């Protein structure tokens, strides 16, 4: 602290008058704990007396102890220069920052009539009798400072607050305090000091016989043993754990990737397992929630990567491709449990939600039967996503893992209203996972011309039997289906492919990487345009598109498209519509309704549940998988399971970046990009090394940083982690501060998180 005052203020022209009744020389002793700011408190007191034109001297009793250790600081005040170089043994004023310290050690040397100021929540009365021979003040400075937000989020600093109470004890008027804080550069803390000034309770000393407190213990020091015996000496004799008011605990926190995953995958868990134990161990964790790792590792939009704490450091961990690595390189499957009471459940629809639901049922030991309208399982995965993004073998591998668990499959069985009733009677429960309804149409003139086709039908057709396209293709829409259509059309020989989208390029819901791939492959994106007419004689030959302006923002914050009168005409030979699908269910028997993911007959629930897009409309494979799993568990449980309250999210600021080397992400191998064939474009990662980049947010990696950083050496390895020796831990918090991945926190000793 640097504080300037004019030289002549020492003589007489002081800014603050001496309080009446102040006797000099004065000795003040401050008792606190390491980290509470006791030394600064003593310095502030010195500065206050400097304002009165007095000589001061202030110093701390420095030790090797750290946070939490009992510490002292001193201030001497006199009219002339101070030559005393000793600690303060006979204090006139005692300031105690932590009431846990109150005792003979603190009161040592304080004569009757000395002034004591204590920071405490307790009332003055609870101390008045015991300390009746002292002028005794009590103030809850901690509460005031906390309320005023002085200090950091974890440590409240009370020295500027308690100085207000001290000024009152000295009998200084409030105006003096204001002036002093202004000149000390502490104006910001004045409200807290004022509050303490007003709230401090003081009892006057009782005069009469005074039995001084018992002298402080340990006047005779322990015999010092030979240095040769030091290896069996000192450390054990001082139980420093009693100094702490908070202790470190190991506690798991939620990684942002885990919180972001719609499927509920334990991402940190499987990546750490991949890093430490290989793909099979990682699969054992991943397969608990994810029946389709090879699929999701290719087609998931990966919200986990957007949340990754590494994103702001050197790039998000390539989580999607690590999942793919595990799916493609593991040779393990989970064994089904045995259920006490085996349920028979029909799952209508063999898309991602249905597969996930059936998988979970089978894993839990129940009998699942998938009733699928098409000739094979997979739904949109089989007939929607093109081969160059999701090869048949990858899908087949994931599906076989599910079927092998003992799932019964009935293909080519479209379920109608009558079948629904039958299934409900035949099975203990039914889960309907039929996905979206029919595709949206544009409603534009000429939409029924030949050559105008629904994109989903086109993709399905191309997967069954590829045909060669000629001429110019226009795709309408901005989602993944639109992009898939464009890229498929290019591969089928289209002379040109244009994607017409009514909003901006940045608004396209398709995966960004896929959009970029499409452009790289030759597709042209025409944003802010909408077809208003298709023309041609029987066969479409041109398309009229209107420019689209931006209107007012809708509920999602995106601006509503406003179709203008500015139109232009493009020649085309084929139009593919990818405008999304309707949420329509045509298999509910009369009298049935769908509410909260269940079927109702009147106000009675039926054992029929809905999962995936037909229930939620979320629209991604990963959401469908998550919802399928949760619905299956709800069926087994009889009701929807309440979500577990997630642990505290680990923010980037809680990661100790300094513990990690800057390592750019391992990119997927796309160098062998084939020249527009249906071979897979993205070959994934070349190795699993990317797993080593995971920060393991909120989850202990047993990296030993805590053990190494502990200044007292009281952290020990155990079979499953670490143990902190509470008898010696001073609660300094260094382990928590240094934990690279925020897998620890400080806890107050009464059990409250600090």
């Amino acid at each position, binding site marked *: 602290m*640097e504080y300037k*005052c004019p030289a002549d203020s*020492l003589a007489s022209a002081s800014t603050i008058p001496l309080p009446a009744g102040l006797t000099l020389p004065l000795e003040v002793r401050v008792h606190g704990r390491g980290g509470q700011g006791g030394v600064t408190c003593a310095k502030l007191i010195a500065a206050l007396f400097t304002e009165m034109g007095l*000589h001061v001297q202030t110093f701390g009793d*420095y030790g090797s102890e750290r946070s939490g250790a009992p510490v002292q600081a001193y201030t001497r005040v006199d009219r002339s220069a101070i030559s*005393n*170089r000793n600690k303060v043994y006979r204090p006139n004023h005692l300031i105690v920052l932590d009431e846990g310290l109150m005792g003979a050690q603190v009161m040592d040397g304080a004569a009757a009539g000395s002034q004591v100021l204590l920071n405490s929540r307790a009332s003055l009365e609870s101390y008045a009798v015991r300390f009746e021979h002292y002028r005794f003040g009590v103030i809850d400075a901690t509460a005031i400072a906390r309320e005023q937000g002085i200090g950091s989020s974890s440590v409240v600093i009370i020295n500027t607050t308690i100085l207000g109470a001290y000024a009152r004890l000295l009998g200084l008027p409030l105006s003096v305090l204001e002036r002093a804080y202004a000149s000390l550069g502490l104006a910001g803390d004045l409200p807290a000091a004022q509050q303490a000034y007003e709230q401090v309770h003081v009892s006057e000393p009782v005069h009469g016989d005074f039995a001084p407190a018992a002298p402080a213990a340990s006047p005779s020091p322990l015999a010092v043993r030979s240095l040769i015996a030091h290896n069996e000496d000192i450390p054990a004799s001082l139980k420093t754990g009693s100094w702490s008011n908070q202790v470190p605990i190991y506690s798991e926190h939620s990684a942002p990737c885990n919180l972001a995953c719609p499927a509920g995958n334990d991402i940190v868990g499987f990546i750490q397992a991949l890093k430490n134990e290989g793909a099979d161990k990682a699969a054992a964790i991943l397969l608990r929630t994810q029946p389709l790792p090879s699929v999701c590792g290719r087609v998931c939009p990966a919200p986990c990567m957007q949340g990754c704490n590494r994103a702001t450091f050197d790039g998000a961990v390539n989580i999607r491709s690590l999942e793919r690595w595990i799916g493609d390189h593991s040779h393990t499957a989970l064994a089904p449990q045995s259920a006490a009471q085996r349920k028979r459940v029909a799952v209508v629809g063999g898309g991602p939600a249905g597969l996930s639901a059936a998988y979970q049922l089978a894993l839990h030991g129940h009998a699942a039967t998938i009733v699928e309208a098409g000739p094979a399982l997979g739904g949109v995965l089989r007939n929607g996503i093109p081969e160059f993004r999701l090869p048949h073998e990858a899908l087949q591998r994931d599906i076989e893992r599910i079927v092998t668990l003992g799932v019964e499959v009935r293909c080519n069985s479209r379920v109608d209203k009558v079948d629904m009733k039958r299934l409900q009677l035949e099975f203990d429960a039914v889960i309907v996972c039929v996905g979206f309804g029919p595709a949206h149409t544009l409603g534009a003139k000429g939409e029924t011309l030949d050559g105008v086709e629904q994109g989903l039908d086109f993709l399905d057709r191309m997967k069954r039997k590829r045909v060669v396209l000629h001429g110019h293709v226009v795709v309408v829409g901005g989602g993944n289906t639109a992009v898939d259509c464009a890229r498929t059309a290019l591969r089928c020989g289209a002379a040109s492919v244009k994607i017409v989208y009514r909003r901006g390029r940045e608004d396209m819901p398709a995966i960004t990487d896929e959009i970029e791939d499409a452009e790289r492959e030759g597709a042209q994106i025409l944003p802010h345009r909408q077809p208003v007419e298709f023309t041609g004689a029987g066969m479409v030959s041109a398309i009229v598109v209107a420019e689209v302006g931006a209107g007012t923002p809708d509920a999602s914050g995106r601006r509503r498209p406003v179709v203008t009168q500015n139109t232009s005409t493009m020649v085309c030979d084929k139009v593919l519509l990818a405008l999304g699908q309707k949420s329509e269910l045509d298999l509910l028997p009369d009298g049935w309704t769908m509410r909260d993911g269940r079927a109702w007959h009147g106000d009675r629930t039926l054992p029929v549940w809905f999962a995936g897009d037909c229930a939620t409309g979320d629209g991604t494979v990963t959401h469908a998988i998550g919802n399928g799993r949760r619905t299956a568990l709800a069926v087994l449980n009889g009701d929807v399971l309440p979500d577990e309250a997630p642990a505290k999210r680990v923010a980037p600021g809680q990661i100790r970046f300094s513990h990690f080397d800057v390592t750019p992400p391992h990119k997927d191998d796309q160098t062998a990009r084939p020249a527009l064939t249906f071979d897979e474009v993205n070959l994934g990662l070349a190795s699993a090394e990317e797993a080593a980049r995971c920060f393991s947010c909120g989850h202990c990696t047993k990296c030993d940083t805590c053990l190494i950083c502990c200044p007292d050496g009281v952290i020990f390895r155990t079979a499953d982690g670490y143990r902190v020796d509470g008898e010696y831990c001073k609660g300094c918090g260094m382990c928590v501060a240094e934990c690279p991945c925020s897998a620890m926190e400080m806890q107050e000793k009464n059990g409250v998180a600090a």
Partner: protein
Amino acid sequence: MTVELLSANHGAALAATLAARANRKGRGFCSGVYPITPSTECMEYLCQQTIEKGRVIRVESEHSAMGVCIGTAAAGARTFTATSSNGLAYMFENCIAAASLRLPVVLAVANRTMGPPWNIWADHSDALTLRDHGLIQFYCADNQELFDTVLCAFRLAEDRRVLMPVMVNMEGFILSHTVAQTDIPHQAQVDDFLPLTDIPHRLDDVPHTLGQIEVPHQTEMHRWQHHNAMLDVLQIYAEIQKEFEAAFGRRLPDAVVAYRAEDAETLIVSMGTIGSTAERVVDKLRAEGQRVGALRVRLFRPLPTEAIRAHFVGKKHIAAIDRNIGIGLGGVLWSETRCLADPATVMQDYLAGLGGGDVRPEHLVKMLADLVPRRSAGAPAIMEAV
């Protein structure tokens, strides 16, 4: 002048800063620094200052910190660094180099016990290891004295008759971390007091190796010249005291500070802050009718033997208090000064405050109670500060 509330560490750094700026029209200032408790605050403060034509270089060790000072001092800059304890030990080799190359480096030492076992508190065992290598040594007793002595150290070190490093010692924590009012002169006053650094053997444009090999006779003579220059410091310091008083209006304490010593029968001789405590004890015992005085050796190298001898004359008892121990003999202050006492004087050595113990007036009273009945001196005795 302004009065600032400063720790002695910050005071030393501020004095160095003022001296640094005073050389702005000359060849500037340079400091190599490396932190160690309890001197860290000094280098921290220095690092925060804006120094026109000056640099503070944070290096990787104390050895390099002094290396920076040696190189830049040889190039003609004003130089300063600070350290403590084992940091000084690590700097040791280069301290001798700075001294033997006759470079005017100023070194502030926050005295701390040598480890291991590790101890962060004050004793003089660190600085005294450099007793015999041609560095001037001051031991200070309060914040103002420390500040003034650092300013004076630049003047002394750079005097063409001196040209050697000056160590200014303050006991760790007891002085280094104690905050008290300190009179700070204006820059113009410092500019007037400190001439621009101008050493005769400054490296010029021609590259030149310092300290090449010597034959025995050269070394013999160089040591002798160094010794004689060191002895001259006693007289030169007295001159600088006068100029300091003229410049700043206050007097630098003498090389040896006597307190009510003239008519004393018993004398307490000590160094550093124990000297202040001794003066308090003298007042107390004088009030009780005892003829006690105190002598504080402020300048330890060169040792002001004649001044000390003059104060020792006729004393019945002398207590030497050593905050150090020369293991195998006894206290260093005692062993250096006992030959200066009259043969009839009983001069007894008391080792006190080793490892940083708080040496209190009652300890000194106890020593005198032990000393006064003695008719002959005994072996050095330890006074445990508990």
